[in-house]
């Protein structure tokens, strides 16, 4: 079963615009992570935010976490063609061993030149 659901399922924007993806989850968590997957490749870790954090930045990435709403958002600013990929949120449920990581269904992001 999948814990998280990303929204939208697909997103197409012009290069240079900002891209926002949302993730909702069902149970309490220890942390939430975002991953990127280029076509035909493995997943690559982008950023981790702990349950006691509300916002985190890494380069052009900004992640927010609202534990009361059980939701997170990933913002990519000044998008580039190389950002074209699928993006997944992943949660470590708080009810079990914190090494259990469950992925959502993903957002497919396309950047138009």
């Amino acid at each position, binding site marked *: 079963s999948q814990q998280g659901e990303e929204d939208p399922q697909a997103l197409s924007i012009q290069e240079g615009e900002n891209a926002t993806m949302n993730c909702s989850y069902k149970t309490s968590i220890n942390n939430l992570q975002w991953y990127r997957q280029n076509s035909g*490749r*493995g997943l690559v870790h982008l950023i981790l935010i702990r349950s006691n954090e509300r916002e985190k930045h890494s380069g052009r990435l900004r992640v927010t976490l609202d534990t009361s709403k059980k939701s997170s958002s990933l913002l990519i600013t000044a998008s580039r063609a190389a950002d074209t990929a699928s993006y997944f949120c*992943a949660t470590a449920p708080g009810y079990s*061993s*914190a*090494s259990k990581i469950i992925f959502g269904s993903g957002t497919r992001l396309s950047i138009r030149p």
Partner: protein
Amino acid sequence: EAGVVQSPRYKIIEKKQPVAFWCNPISGHNTLYWYRQNLGQGPELLIRYENEEAVDDSQLPKDRFSAERLKGVDSTLKIQPAELGDSAVYLCASSFTPTVSLGSGELFFGEGSRLTVL
């Protein structure tokens, strides 16, 4: 530093045939994961190892799937016999989990093994 290595990258087999996938995690990573990813979907956890112990295999179809992690390092995932619905990408990942209370850090993924069952 070498990343997570998986083999084979691609495998095409007839249904009812056996297949095995191999994973070599990053040195020092105590947690190893096998995920299955269907086209257009997120990875689905099949089994998770803490060192050599399988601590979560609730999603592993045990009638046909088996896995092992000898000496807490390399791991093998086997399907016997394969069915048409097993066509997917099988991803291996590893991480270092210092203590349960601190939680897991990032997962490092291999490139995956793409299985096609005809």
